[in-house]
């Protein structure tokens, strides 16, 4: 029997996936462990290796086609096996591009339905009828059911979305189809902004002591054989540590919202937003309250590099109770961020800027950083959020306390 190569489930909620690139072609000899293809999921690209030795045949999934998890995408024939046996299913056509149906506003938010072998989209009879009545093409509706099946609720959702104003002549702009990451960002943040009751708290943090300590620590960093420092702490490393320390001090804020319950965590896992080409990732620094600043710094450097290469494992960007989003490097003075559900908070960090502040009636020049904490009011009330942000400010302004 030839070995079946299937589209594996690489992410918790994954129902379908797209083969971004095949690294082998029909007739190639492969060895177990050799790279076969790359999957693009909502979040990341994953490399899939050969499950055994043999000759690869019957590649049935085209690059770019959206296919259900578990489907056979190729067969590996071992020595002596005839590749003539037509064991493979019908090749699947690549998924149709989103056609601007009668309603050009139908923007899918979830998984686009996978066209079945017959080119039809799975939908319940009621959904088909409602879509027809509403003038919506099925392929423009995201199905929420098993195998991407479109239900009546999915059609109602698509119909309820307000029509986007036609503000330019077709041809006067370039169309960029959404990739999995863009779709996920759109879906999750729309859900968050529409359903999570945000409130915002703002403080200014004095960076005088933190800057001094950072300089001294970096000056004492150990050197490698080429006399280069092994680590270099950034302000952001201190912010991660300070946020984790604040969560440890205010454990009631170290929570996620779970609809029927609030989950309170034992360790302080802090997500950090990393901008990448075409989107962003939020890798999570686990138990940051118990890690040293150099540990956090080196871990963050590795996570950020792999995020930019889209090589993070799902387990590395899932979880956490808060996220740090720092736009200081762009000179942004202050902003507010959208919570990444089910996390309870997100900290928006501005640039360190020199400001004159009153000290004992005198105008004194100080470097300050403005931070805004967005809180999910279902999980974190105003006073609790204020305690968390006040603790964070204390750790930033008195970094030595993080050693306590």
């Amino acid at each position, binding site marked *: 029997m030839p070995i079946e190569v299937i589209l594996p489930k690489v992410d918790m909620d994954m129902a379908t996936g797209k083969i971004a690139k095949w690294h082998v072609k029909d007739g190639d000899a492969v060895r177990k462990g050799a790279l076969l293809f790359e999957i693009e999921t909502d979040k990341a690209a994953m490399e899939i290796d050969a499950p055994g030795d043999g000759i690869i045949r019957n590649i049935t999934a085209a690059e770019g086609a959206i296919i259900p998890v578990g489907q056979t995408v190729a067969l590996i024939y071992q020595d002596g096996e005839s590749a003539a046996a037509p064991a493979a299913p019908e090749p699947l056509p690549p998924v149709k591009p989103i056609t601007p149906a009668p309603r050009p506003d139908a923007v899918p938010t979830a998984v686009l339905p996978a066209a079945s072998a017959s080119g039809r989209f799975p939908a319940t009879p009621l959904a088909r009828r409602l879509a027809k009545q509403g003038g919506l093409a099925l392929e423009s509706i995201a199905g929420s059911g098993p195998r991407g099946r479109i*239900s009546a609720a999915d059609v109602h959702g698509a119909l309820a979305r307000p029509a986007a104003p036609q503000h330019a002549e077709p041809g006067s702009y370039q169309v960029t189809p959404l990739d999995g990451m863009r779709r996920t960002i759109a879906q999750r943040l729309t859900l968050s902004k529409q359903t999570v009751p945000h409130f915002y708290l703002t403080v200014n943090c004095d960076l005088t002591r933190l800057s001094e300590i950072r300089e001294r620590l970096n000056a004492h960093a150990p050197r490698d054989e080429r006399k280069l420092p092994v680590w270099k702490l950034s302000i952001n490393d201190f912010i991660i540590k300070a946020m984790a320390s604040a969560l440890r001090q205010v454990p009631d804020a170290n929570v996620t919202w779970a609809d029927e319950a609030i989950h309170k965590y034992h360790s302080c896992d802090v997500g950090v937003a990393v901008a990448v080409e075409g989107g962003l990732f939020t890798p999570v620094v686990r138990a940051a309250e118990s890690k040293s600043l150099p540990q956090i710094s080196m871990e963050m450097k590795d996570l950020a590099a792999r995020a930019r290469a889209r090589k993070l494992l799902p387990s590395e960007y899932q979880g956490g109770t808060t996220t740090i989003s720092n736009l200081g490097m762009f000179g942004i003075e202050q902003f507010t961020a959208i919570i990444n559900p089910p996390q309870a908070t997100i900290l928006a960090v501005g640039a360190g800027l020199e400001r004159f502040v009153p000290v004992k009636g005198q105008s004194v020049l100080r470097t300050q950083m403005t931070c805004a904490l967005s809180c999910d009011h279902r999980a974190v009330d105003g006073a609790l959020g204020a305690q968390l942000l006040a603790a964070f400010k204390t750790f930033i302004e008195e970094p030595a306390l993080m050693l306590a």
Partner: protein
Amino acid sequence: MNAPLRELTYAQAIQEALATAMEADKRVFIMGEDIGVYGGAFQVTGDLVHRFGEDRVMDTPISELGAAGIAVGAALAGSRPILEFQFSDFATLAMEQIVNQAAKMRFMLGGKVSVPLVMRLPSGSGTGAAAQHSQSLEAWLAHVPGLKVVQPSTPHDAKGLLLAAIDDPDPVMVFEHKLLYKMKGEVPEDAYRVPIGKAAVRREGRHATIVATSIMVHRALEAAEVLAGEGIEVEVIDLRTLRPLDTATIIESVKKTTRLACVYEGVKTLGIGAEISALIAESEAFDYLDAPILRLGGVDSPIPYNPVLEKAAVPQTPGIIEQVRNLVKGRI
């Protein structure tokens, strides 16, 4: 003026229907194994032999085919026989008389005769009576044109459907559930009828329809109560009659709720759930379906003697809750 509420068990309600019919009509008599002095294997006939005498409450030998032949002949000759099978499983011995004779006479003789025969059949599992005494064969018999098949789920319907069956000019098979005999419920004293061929909506809902039969009606209602606490409103239809099927009630309900689950004790494969599913697929309700149709029936196995396996072989309330929840939440 409302009559005072009076409760009888399912078995008592059947006995009351038998006595009412025998008092009202001299042509009515009952026959079966151990139904006389012994009072019936499930004590349904009780002391009727003392009230109506051995000519009208007749013990038969252990010979189902012979008894059924006598009953068919008596019905053709103008009597109104009611034949009790001790267990519905034993009706298999009398198939020639039931399927080839009782069900066919009216059609083969151009409507010049009819067979006003009532058969009572204690059925279903849950009593530890093992594979030969626990079956639910109602779908078998409902497959035969010329027979009517009813399945009362309450004491009220047990009396009313039996009286309607005795009135009926054609053979009617009344499948009673052994676990329901001791169930109590309100039963009016008058000789009311429950129409054959009419289902009952036991609970209204808007998210899913459960079509259930016999004891499964009660499990479906328990499930609906739990699901109501989660915001899932389930409509529960008690089918009551398998043949002729009340298609209109089912179709209207599915058009309203857009989801259908069939819950029945008979073997799932080729059972009543298959018929109802196909009925919906062929009807105007198809275009209203927003989920696959769910069938919860008995497993494809003889009913086991082991009590744990016996329970696992037919739908139970927790399973109904879970599966109907999945149905409504779009997980199947």
